[in-house]
Protein backbone atom coordinates (compact mmCIF):
# COMPACT_ATOMS: atom_id res chain seq x y z
CA UNK A 1 0.00 0.00 0.00
CA UNK A 2 2.76 2.52 0.94
CA UNK A 3 4.53 1.83 -2.35
CA UNK A 4 1.33 2.52 -4.29
CA UNK A 5 0.75 5.73 -2.30
CA UNK A 6 4.21 7.03 -3.25
CA UNK A 7 3.63 6.09 -6.90
CA UNK A 8 0.23 7.79 -6.88
CA UNK A 9 1.67 11.00 -5.44
CA UNK A 10 4.10 11.23 -8.38
CA UNK A 11 1.38 10.42 -10.90
CA UNK A 12 -1.01 13.02 -9.46
CA UNK A 13 1.72 15.70 -9.50
CA UNK A 14 2.52 14.91 -13.13
CA UNK A 15 -1.07 14.55 -14.33
CA UNK A 16 -2.26 17.77 -12.65
CA UNK A 17 0.87 19.84 -13.40
CA UNK A 18 1.47 20.62 -9.72
CA UNK A 19 4.89 22.10 -10.54
CA UNK A 20 5.86 23.51 -7.17
CA UNK A 21 4.72 20.49 -5.16
CA UNK A 22 6.96 17.53 -4.27
CA UNK A 23 5.70 14.05 -3.29
CA UNK A 24 6.82 14.61 0.32
CA UNK A 25 4.61 17.74 0.49
CA UNK A 26 1.49 15.62 0.08
CA UNK A 27 -0.01 14.07 3.20
CA UNK A 28 -1.68 10.86 1.98
CA UNK A 29 -4.56 11.37 4.44
CA UNK A 30 -5.26 15.06 3.71
CA UNK A 31 -8.27 16.01 1.55
CA UNK A 32 -7.30 16.53 -2.10
CA UNK A 33 -10.06 19.07 -2.74
CA UNK A 34 -11.12 22.28 -1.04
CA UNK A 35 -7.93 22.70 0.95
CA UNK A 36 -4.41 21.28 0.79
CA UNK A 37 -3.65 20.94 -2.90
CA UNK A 38 -6.57 23.20 -3.84
CA UNK A 39 -7.72 21.05 -6.74
CA UNK A 40 -10.67 22.08 -8.91
CA UNK A 41 -13.37 20.35 -10.99
CA UNK A 42 -11.11 19.91 -14.03
CA UNK A 43 -8.56 18.22 -11.77
CA UNK A 44 -11.29 15.82 -10.64
CA UNK A 45 -11.86 14.84 -14.27
CA UNK A 46 -8.11 14.38 -14.74
CA UNK A 47 -8.01 12.01 -11.76
CA UNK A 48 -10.78 9.93 -13.34
CA UNK A 49 -8.70 9.75 -16.55
CA UNK A 50 -5.62 8.80 -14.49
CA UNK A 51 -7.41 5.83 -12.90
CA UNK A 52 -8.59 4.60 -16.28
CA UNK A 53 -5.32 5.19 -18.15
CA UNK A 54 -2.85 3.93 -15.55
CA UNK A 55 -4.91 1.29 -13.74
CA UNK A 56 -7.68 0.29 -16.15
CA UNK A 57 -10.33 1.33 -13.62
CA UNK A 58 -13.46 3.01 -14.91
CA UNK A 59 -15.66 4.81 -12.40
CA UNK A 60 -19.19 3.92 -13.39
CA UNK A 61 -21.08 5.96 -10.78
CA UNK A 62 -19.90 9.61 -10.52
CA UNK A 63 -21.28 9.71 -6.97
CA UNK A 64 -18.46 7.38 -5.91
CA UNK A 65 -15.89 10.01 -6.92
CA UNK A 66 -16.19 12.00 -3.71
CA UNK A 67 -15.22 8.99 -1.62
CA UNK A 68 -12.57 7.61 -3.98
CA UNK A 69 -10.79 10.94 -4.48
CA UNK A 70 -11.00 12.12 -0.87
CA UNK A 71 -7.27 11.58 -0.39
CA UNK A 72 -4.27 9.81 -1.90
CA UNK A 73 -4.84 6.96 0.56
CA UNK A 74 -8.49 6.53 -0.41
CA UNK A 75 -7.44 6.43 -4.07
CA UNK A 76 -4.80 3.79 -3.30
CA UNK A 77 -7.34 1.69 -1.38
CA UNK A 78 -9.81 1.88 -4.25
CA UNK A 79 -7.14 0.91 -6.79
CA UNK A 80 -6.04 -2.05 -4.65
CA UNK A 81 -9.64 -3.27 -4.38
CA UNK A 82 -10.55 -2.77 -8.04
CA UNK A 83 -7.39 -3.16 -10.14
CA UNK A 84 -7.92 -5.53 -13.05
Amino acid at each position, binding site marked *: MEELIEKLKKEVIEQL*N*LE*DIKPEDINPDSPLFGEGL*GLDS*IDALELIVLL*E*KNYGIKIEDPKDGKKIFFSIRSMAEYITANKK
Partner: protein
Amino acid sequence: MRQFITAYTLIDGFKCMVNGRLLFYQENILTFADFIKALYKQEQVNYPKFYKMDALGKLGFIASELLLRNKDFKLYPPELTGVVLSNSSSSLDTDIAHYETIRDREHYFPSPSVFVYTLPNIVIGEICIRNGIKGENAFLVSESFNSELIAGYVTDLFSRELVKGCLCGWIEVLGNRCEAFLAWVENQADVAETKPGMFNPVPFDAEHLKLLKNQNDR
Protein backbone atom coordinates in the same frame (compact mmCIF):
# COMPACT_ATOMS: atom_id res chain seq x y z
CA MET B 1 -12.20 62.04 -26.90
CA ARG B 2 -8.81 60.62 -27.89
CA GLN B 3 -7.24 57.55 -26.33
CA PHE B 4 -3.62 56.94 -25.37
CA ILE B 5 -1.42 53.90 -24.90
CA THR B 6 -0.01 54.37 -21.42
CA ALA B 7 1.88 51.08 -20.98
CA TYR B 8 2.87 48.06 -23.03
CA THR B 9 4.57 44.66 -22.91
CA LEU B 10 6.53 43.08 -25.74
CA ILE B 11 7.69 39.46 -25.78
CA ASP B 12 9.56 38.18 -28.81
CA GLY B 13 12.38 35.69 -29.33
CA PHE B 14 12.39 34.76 -25.63
CA LYS B 15 13.07 38.40 -24.79
CA CYS B 16 10.67 40.43 -22.67
CA MET B 17 10.33 44.21 -22.55
CA VAL B 18 7.95 46.31 -20.47
CA ASN B 19 7.42 49.95 -21.40
CA GLY B 20 10.52 49.83 -23.61
CA ARG B 21 12.81 48.47 -20.92
CA LEU B 22 14.41 45.05 -21.18
CA LEU B 23 13.08 42.89 -18.37
CA PHE B 24 14.23 39.41 -19.32
CA TYR B 25 16.61 37.76 -21.75
CA GLN B 26 18.70 34.60 -21.40
CA GLU B 27 20.68 33.40 -24.40
CA ASN B 28 20.73 29.74 -23.36
CA ILE B 29 16.95 29.29 -23.37
CA LEU B 30 15.80 27.13 -26.29
CA THR B 31 12.17 26.23 -25.60
CA PHE B 32 9.00 28.17 -24.90
CA ALA B 33 8.34 26.05 -21.80
CA ASP B 34 11.75 26.93 -20.30
CA PHE B 35 11.40 30.60 -21.24
CA ILE B 36 7.97 31.16 -19.74
CA LYS B 37 8.83 29.28 -16.55
CA ALA B 38 12.07 31.24 -16.12
CA LEU B 39 10.21 34.54 -16.65
CA TYR B 40 7.50 33.49 -14.16
CA LYS B 41 10.15 32.62 -11.57
CA GLN B 42 12.23 35.74 -12.13
CA GLU B 43 9.24 38.02 -11.72
CA GLN B 44 8.11 36.12 -8.61
CA VAL B 45 4.54 35.83 -9.77
CA ASN B 46 2.71 33.71 -7.24
CA TYR B 47 -0.24 32.11 -9.02
CA PRO B 48 -0.16 28.27 -8.88
CA LYS B 49 -2.88 28.01 -11.55
CA PHE B 50 -0.28 29.35 -14.00
CA TYR B 51 1.24 25.86 -14.32
CA LYS B 52 -2.10 24.40 -15.39
CA MET B 53 -2.59 26.83 -18.27
CA ASP B 54 -1.77 25.98 -21.86
CA ALA B 55 1.02 27.84 -23.67
CA LEU B 56 -1.27 30.60 -24.98
CA GLY B 57 -2.73 31.08 -21.50
CA LYS B 58 0.71 31.28 -19.91
CA LEU B 59 1.99 33.80 -22.45
CA GLY B 60 -1.08 36.02 -22.20
CA PHE B 61 -1.17 35.75 -18.43
CA ILE B 62 2.50 36.72 -17.97
CA ALA B 63 2.33 39.52 -20.55
CA SER B 64 -0.72 41.01 -18.83
CA GLU B 65 0.68 40.48 -15.35
CA LEU B 66 3.88 42.38 -16.13
CA LEU B 67 1.84 45.22 -17.58
CA LEU B 68 -1.08 45.58 -15.21
CA ARG B 69 0.85 45.25 -11.98
CA ASN B 70 2.48 48.59 -12.81
CA LYS B 71 -0.80 50.31 -13.56
CA ASP B 72 -3.56 51.54 -11.32
CA PHE B 73 -6.08 50.17 -13.81
CA LYS B 74 -8.43 49.10 -11.03
CA LEU B 75 -9.52 52.72 -10.86
CA TYR B 76 -11.91 51.75 -13.63
CA PRO B 77 -14.95 49.67 -12.75
CA PRO B 78 -14.48 45.99 -13.78
CA GLU B 79 -17.45 46.33 -16.15
CA LEU B 80 -15.73 49.21 -17.95
CA THR B 81 -12.42 47.43 -18.42
CA GLY B 82 -12.05 45.49 -21.68
CA VAL B 83 -9.69 42.95 -23.24
CA VAL B 84 -9.29 42.64 -27.02
CA LEU B 85 -6.67 40.18 -28.23
CA SER B 86 -5.67 38.65 -31.54
CA ASN B 87 -3.33 36.12 -33.11
CA SER B 88 -2.82 33.99 -36.20
CA SER B 89 -2.74 30.42 -34.87
CA SER B 90 -5.85 30.64 -32.70
CA SER B 91 -5.56 27.73 -30.20
CA LEU B 92 -3.79 25.43 -32.70
CA ASP B 93 -0.89 24.71 -30.31
CA THR B 94 -3.33 23.18 -27.81
CA ASP B 95 -5.56 21.69 -30.50
CA ILE B 96 -2.54 19.62 -31.59
CA ALA B 97 -1.89 18.54 -27.99
CA HIS B 98 -5.54 17.51 -27.67
CA TYR B 99 -5.42 15.62 -30.96
CA GLU B 100 -2.43 13.63 -29.67
CA THR B 101 -4.60 12.35 -26.79
CA ILE B 102 -7.39 11.13 -29.08
CA ARG B 103 -5.81 10.06 -32.38
CA ASP B 104 -5.09 6.49 -31.24
CA ARG B 105 -8.41 4.66 -30.79
CA GLU B 106 -6.63 1.99 -28.73
CA HIS B 107 -5.32 4.58 -26.27
CA TYR B 108 -8.13 7.11 -26.32
CA PHE B 109 -7.63 9.26 -23.23
CA PRO B 110 -8.65 12.87 -23.92
CA SER B 111 -7.33 15.13 -21.19
CA PRO B 112 -10.00 17.46 -19.73
CA SER B 113 -7.37 20.00 -18.70
CA VAL B 114 -6.01 20.15 -22.26
CA PHE B 115 -9.44 20.17 -23.88
CA VAL B 116 -10.65 23.21 -21.92
CA TYR B 117 -7.97 25.31 -23.63
CA THR B 118 -8.97 24.42 -27.20
CA LEU B 119 -10.40 27.90 -27.79
CA PRO B 120 -8.23 31.02 -28.14
CA ASN B 121 -10.41 33.25 -25.96
CA ILE B 122 -9.69 31.15 -22.84
CA VAL B 123 -6.57 33.27 -22.36
CA ILE B 124 -8.87 36.29 -21.98
CA GLY B 125 -10.74 34.40 -19.27
CA GLU B 126 -7.48 33.75 -17.40
CA ILE B 127 -6.55 37.44 -17.52
CA CYS B 128 -10.07 38.51 -16.45
CA ILE B 129 -10.19 36.04 -13.54
CA ARG B 130 -6.80 37.16 -12.28
CA ASN B 131 -7.65 40.88 -12.48
CA GLY B 132 -11.39 40.86 -11.82
CA ILE B 133 -12.14 42.30 -15.26
CA LYS B 134 -15.78 41.98 -16.37
CA GLY B 135 -16.03 44.26 -19.40
CA GLU B 136 -16.17 43.82 -23.16
CA ASN B 137 -13.84 41.25 -24.65
CA ALA B 138 -13.03 39.71 -28.00
CA PHE B 139 -10.41 37.46 -29.54
CA LEU B 140 -9.78 38.12 -33.22
CA VAL B 141 -7.85 35.82 -35.57
CA SER B 142 -5.96 37.27 -38.54
CA GLU B 143 -2.99 36.13 -40.61
CA SER B 144 -0.69 38.78 -39.14
CA PHE B 145 -1.04 41.59 -36.59
CA ASN B 146 -3.77 43.84 -37.94
CA SER B 147 -3.21 47.12 -36.11
CA GLU B 148 -6.06 48.82 -37.98
CA LEU B 149 -8.54 46.15 -36.94
CA ILE B 150 -7.49 46.34 -33.28
CA ALA B 151 -7.39 50.15 -33.25
CA GLY B 152 -10.80 50.34 -34.93
CA TYR B 153 -12.43 47.77 -32.65
CA VAL B 154 -11.08 49.26 -29.43
CA THR B 155 -11.76 52.86 -30.47
CA ASP B 156 -15.36 51.85 -31.12
CA LEU B 157 -15.64 50.43 -27.59
CA PHE B 158 -14.38 53.76 -26.19
CA SER B 159 -16.61 55.87 -28.42
CA ARG B 160 -19.68 53.93 -27.28
CA GLU B 161 -18.48 54.34 -23.66
CA LEU B 162 -18.40 50.57 -23.17
CA VAL B 163 -14.87 50.79 -21.73
CA LYS B 164 -12.74 53.32 -19.88
CA GLY B 165 -9.62 51.16 -19.99
CA CYS B 166 -8.73 48.38 -22.41
CA LEU B 167 -5.97 45.81 -22.76
CA CYS B 168 -5.36 44.98 -26.40
CA GLY B 169 -2.83 43.38 -28.71
CA TRP B 170 -1.38 40.13 -30.01
CA ILE B 171 -0.72 36.80 -28.24
CA GLU B 172 0.71 34.13 -30.53
CA VAL B 173 2.19 30.72 -29.67
CA LEU B 174 2.88 27.72 -31.86
CA GLY B 175 5.45 25.23 -30.63
CA ASN B 176 8.51 27.18 -29.52
CA ARG B 177 7.60 30.27 -31.53
CA CYS B 178 5.97 32.90 -29.37
CA GLU B 179 5.18 36.57 -29.68
CA ALA B 180 3.20 38.85 -27.41
CA PHE B 181 2.36 42.52 -27.59
CA LEU B 182 -0.09 44.01 -25.12
CA ALA B 183 -1.00 47.68 -24.85
CA TRP B 184 -3.01 49.36 -22.09
CA VAL B 185 -5.30 52.04 -23.51
CA GLU B 186 -7.06 54.84 -21.62
CA ASN B 187 -8.99 58.01 -22.41
CA GLN B 188 -6.82 61.09 -22.66
CA ALA B 189 -8.66 62.72 -19.75
CA ASP B 190 -7.82 59.78 -17.49
CA VAL B 191 -4.13 59.61 -18.31
CA ALA B 192 -2.29 60.46 -15.11
CA GLU B 193 0.95 62.39 -15.16
CA THR B 194 3.76 60.17 -16.33
CA LYS B 195 5.70 58.81 -13.39
CA PRO B 196 9.50 59.12 -13.60
CA GLY B 197 10.91 56.15 -15.46
CA MET B 198 7.54 55.13 -16.84
CA PHE B 199 6.57 54.99 -20.47
CA ASN B 200 5.59 58.29 -22.04
CA PRO B 201 2.01 57.86 -23.35
CA VAL B 202 1.51 57.84 -27.13
CA PRO B 203 -1.74 58.33 -29.08
CA PHE B 204 -3.73 55.15 -29.57
CA ASP B 205 -3.98 54.47 -33.28
CA ALA B 206 -3.00 51.82 -35.82
CA GLU B 207 0.33 53.48 -36.57
CA HIS B 208 1.52 53.62 -32.95
CA LEU B 209 0.35 50.07 -32.28
CA LYS B 210 2.42 48.89 -35.25
CA LEU B 211 5.44 50.99 -34.25
CA LEU B 212 5.50 49.66 -30.69
CA LYS B 213 4.95 46.05 -31.71
CA ASN B 214 7.60 46.05 -34.43
CA GLN B 215 10.26 48.05 -32.63
CA ASN B 216 12.57 45.01 -32.40
CA ASP B 217 12.49 44.64 -36.19
CA ARG B 218 13.95 48.04 -36.82
